[in-house]
Structures are given as C-alpha cells and as structure tokens.
C-alpha cells in the first residue's frame, strides 16, 4: 500500500492534476488572466475537491458497490458533485456571506471542472482507502491551485510584453504551461510513480 503522505505530495508535485494529467484545463486557461481571481478559483476547487472525494468515497463504498451499480458510477458521481456544489453555495450564502462574495461566482464553474470528476475516478480506479482518498483529494486540489496561481502570476507579469499576434492569449498560456510542466517533471525523482 502506498503511504497516504506519499500520495499527498505526489499529487501536488509529480502527478499534478493540470501539469501531468491535463485535468481542469478549460477553466485553467480561461480564468488565469488575473492572479487574484485565479487564486480564488483555486481555493474553491480545493475545497470542493476534498469534499467530493470524501463523499464520493463513502457513496461508492456504501451505496454503489453493495447495490451492484458500478456501471452507473459516472451518473452517481456527477450528481453528487452537482448537488454538493449547489448545497455548498446555499450554505455559504447563509452562513459565510463574506466568503460567498469572494468565492461564490466560481462555484457553478466547478461542476464542469474535469479535475473534480477526474480525482474521483482516479480514486476509484486506484482503489484508495479512506485516508488515501482524503489526502489525494487535498493534494490534487492544492496542486491545481498552485498551477493556476503560478500561470496567472506569469501571465500578469507579461501582460504588457509584445507577442506575435496569433500567440497572444491561449497560445502563449499553453507554451508557458508546457515550460511549467517541464519544470515539474524535475520532481519526478522524489517519489515512486503512483
């Protein structure tokens, strides 16, 4: 069994959701023009990721497997995610209005963020236990946050640089991401591949 802490650090550095698994790219590219917004999205993703991993773990172990509904798992997971985001938004609005103003606008975006469903599916395929799943969800969220914040910071710095017209916007964002991914490959010696 892989130690949960190895999973935690590996999911931040070596198997980063964006830089090595390509998940959550849509919002990663389109919401990374400004550091503050990007970081806000990153925080929301981390929060939702931890919660969905834990809930989907429980749902999968105690509902889906005993009832023999494995073939319906995608529908079950996506409903859990959509419902959770909705509940979270309502609860935040009611109890933490300040936080809701800051993070609320990102929540609907998160339902269709592939990184969230991806984390759950990886958890199921790799057959993680509870602690492993929890730390995997947390690590993946933090890794996603790290990557989008880094990209947004770089894009903010180079906003005034002159680029060939076709390369502006998403084009250069991908090339920066490629360079970041190359840098993160350097971490791969630290952990065995999970």
């Amino acid at each position: 069994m892989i130690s949960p802490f190895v999973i935690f650090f590996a999911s931040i550095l070596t198997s980063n959701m964006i830089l090595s698994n390509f998940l959550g790219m849509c919002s990663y590219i389109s919401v990374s023009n400004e550091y503050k917004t990007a970081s806000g999205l990153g925080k929301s993703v981390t929060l939702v990721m931890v919660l969905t991993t834990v809930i989907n773990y429980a749902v999968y172990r105690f509902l889906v497997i005993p009832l023999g509904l494995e073939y319906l798992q995608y529908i079950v997971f996506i409903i859990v995610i959509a419902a959770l985001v909705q509940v979270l938004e309502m609860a935040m609005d009611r109890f933490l209005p300040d936080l809701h103003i800051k993070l609320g606008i990102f929540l609907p975006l998160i339902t269709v963020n592939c990184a969230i469903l991806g984390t759950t599916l990886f958890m199921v395929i790799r057959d993680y236990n509870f602690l492993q799943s929890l730390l995997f969800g947390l690590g993946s969220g933090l890794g996603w946050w790290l990557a989008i914040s880094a990209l947004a910071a770089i894009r903010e710095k180079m906003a005034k640089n002159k680029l060939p017209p076709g390369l502006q916007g998403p084009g250069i964002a991908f090339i920066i991401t490629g360079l970041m991914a190359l840098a993160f490959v350097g971490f791969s010696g630290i952990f065995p591949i999970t």
Partner: protein
Amino acid sequence: MSPRETVRSVIRRNLFSENQVIRQILGICSSLAVTNLLSNSLVMGLGLTFTTALSSLTLSALRNWIPHRIRMIVQTLVIAAYVIFVDIFLKANLPEISKALGPYVGLIITNCIIMGRAEAFAQKNPPLLSLLDGLFAGLGYTGVLLAIAFIREFLGFGTLFGYPVNVVGFETWTVMVMPPSAFFLIGVMIWIASARMAAKKGVKKA
C-alpha cells in the same frame, strides 16, 4: 454565429473556422493525456464524436419539453448515459485501450465540447442538424487529437499506430512521451490557427 445554418456551414465551421479545440479552446481537459499514441487518440476521438452527436440529437429532440431551469442537469444526465454506453462498449471490445484510457473515458462527461454544443446549438436547432453539428464538432476534435498524436508517437516512440517506421539512425525524443510536449504542440497549433485566421481576415486579431 450566423442566424441560418446550413449543412455546409455547419461542417465548415466545426472542422475549420471554429474548431472546438484550437479555436474555441474547449475540451482540452480530458484529451491531451491520451495523445501520446495514435490508437488511443483515435478511440478517444470516436468515443467523443459518438457522445457529442447523439447527445446533441437527443437534447435537440427534447428541447421543447425540457424545462429551462433544470436543463443543465438533464443535459448532464443524457451525456452521462451515452458515456456509460461508450465505456461498456470499450471494456467489452477493446479492453486494452479501455485500460490505457483509464478515467479519461468517464471524463468525456465533463468535456466542455459536448455541453457547449448542447447549449449553443442543439437548443435552437432541429434534431438532424444538431446531430450533424455534434458529429462534425467531434470529428474536428478527433482531427486535432490525431495530429498531435501523430507528432508525439512518431517522434516519441518512432512508431505509427504501433508499427515501427524508424528512419535509420533516428533517436526517439523522450520529451515527446511526457506531458509537456502536448502543451507545446497545442500552443503552436493554436498559434498557427490564429495567425492564419487573422491573415485571412486581413485584420490583426488578438
């Protein structure tokens, strides 16, 4: 989008001028990871094409019956149903590729292209045209995947669809097997596509 869409405009738009991946930057999420091998990309592309086409057809046929407020959840459920179909089909018939694709088959559900076509096109257009729109959006996606996979498999493994096509003395590029290369390739493709579009229109476009 022009108000009246014809069969021809739907095909042209989806394959070239508004290609979902390199022009709209959609659906990159679940796709780049599978582009280190041509066969995986082909299966992934066809799976997505199937899902997009049929879910566009279904949602367009149902568009007058779905209450507006809950349409998102209905869309998601319809898409998920087709993805389950693809997943079961792959597990039964192509178990090896199904294993290699892993979670990425399930992630077709959250692929923005499908939801995008459902929202932007199938909502307002008749079923058969929507089917065509979904089909060609998916084929445009498949084309981009295959182009990336061609370069990555050729340079990274020296093979095409698993057959060795090594030129004598050719050293394979390890970097092409790794994730960063996919980012570079897609960045360059977007660059070329935007530059060509800008040149065509004769205006400098961001």
